[in-house]
């Protein structure tokens, strides 16, 4: 019951891992993605992507700038132009 999460920038692939939940700052509001989410695509605002490794755990924050998120049956892919770890 893990969600495959990928974070890619033009310079490199930053993350590719199995996580519990990802909360993305979509341009029309934040949204959380769990495993089995319906196919979805959204542009994202500058802000922090919250990565929950496990249910109820503390989120890890990754600041991203400019890009969009794509949710498919394979998991979530965030394409960002800049990432501040």
């Amino acid at each position, binding site marked *: 019951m893990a969600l495959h999460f990928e974070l*890619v*920038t*033009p*310079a*490199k*692939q930053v993350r590719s891992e199995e996580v519990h939940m990802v909360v993305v700052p*979509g*341009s*029309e509001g934040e949204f959380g993605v769990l495993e089995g989410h*319906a*196919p*979805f*695509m*959204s*542009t994202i605002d500058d802000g922090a992507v919250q990565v929950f490794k496990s249910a109820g755990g503390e989120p890890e924050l990754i600041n991203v700038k*400019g*890009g*969009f998120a*794509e949710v*498919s*049956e394979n998991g979530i*892919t965030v*394409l960002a*132009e*800049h990432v501040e770890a």
Partner: protein
Amino acid sequence: MPSLKELKDRIGSVKSTQKITKAKQMVAAAKLRRAQASAEAGRPYAVRLSAVMASLAGKVSGDSAPKLLAGSGSDQRNLLVVVNTDKGLCGGLNSNIVKAAKAKAQELQAQGKQVEFYLVGKKGRAPLKREFEKAITGGFDTSAVKTPGFEEADAISAELIQMFEDGKFDVAHLIYPTFQSALVQNPTVNQLIPVPSPEVSDDGGAVVEYEPGEEEILEALLPRYVKTQVFGALLEREASEQGASMTAMDNATRNAGDLINKLTIQYNRSRQAAITTELIEIIAGAEAL
């Protein structure tokens, strides 16, 4: 016949040239590895982006498609974006790119179209200026930064898209070297603007929700796609430059070695000839007594 001293100086100068070319070769080899790694690291993003583009472009119908995808309705005015290196000492790389650019320009002119140039990098400027002096409309200098990155690609594509929106050209082609190996770097010509319609991928009919709308996303996506193309070209250029430089400097080092051998033989022969002459003089002198 050059004198012994002249020969010696000549050998010395070729030797120091060889040292320089050898150093440049080693530097290029080290840089090549890095450039190749960053070119490879950039690939996932480009692959993802074109996959998303493909699934979106099929859904947005012809009339409502953004200008960057649909084009301006004409193909009269062409802009060639030529990506050259900033530094020399890389063999025939730049002249090959310039040759490809000229061929493309002549092909377009033969079809009665207008051609203009936008130059990235220093080295293509002079040869293209000689032939197409009036056609060069702009350029971008990448020599100020050590390794051109996404910011430079951002600036270049922003300027190009602005020019396109101002109606300065209808079609833009990107000409850059693609790195295949240290020996082979082929000039490539790609259409940049309008973005060529990607092959529509069939994603199994899954209903994808879009936020905001499909068109808004596509509109946000297209400039990013152009940017990624330019970024890819810059990365390829970097790898190609180092690869070509490595090969060219390897050849130069070898040629210098050959030249040194030849000169050394010539030097030794002249030296022996001089000794023999001296001996004959001494013997002749002794016999005369």
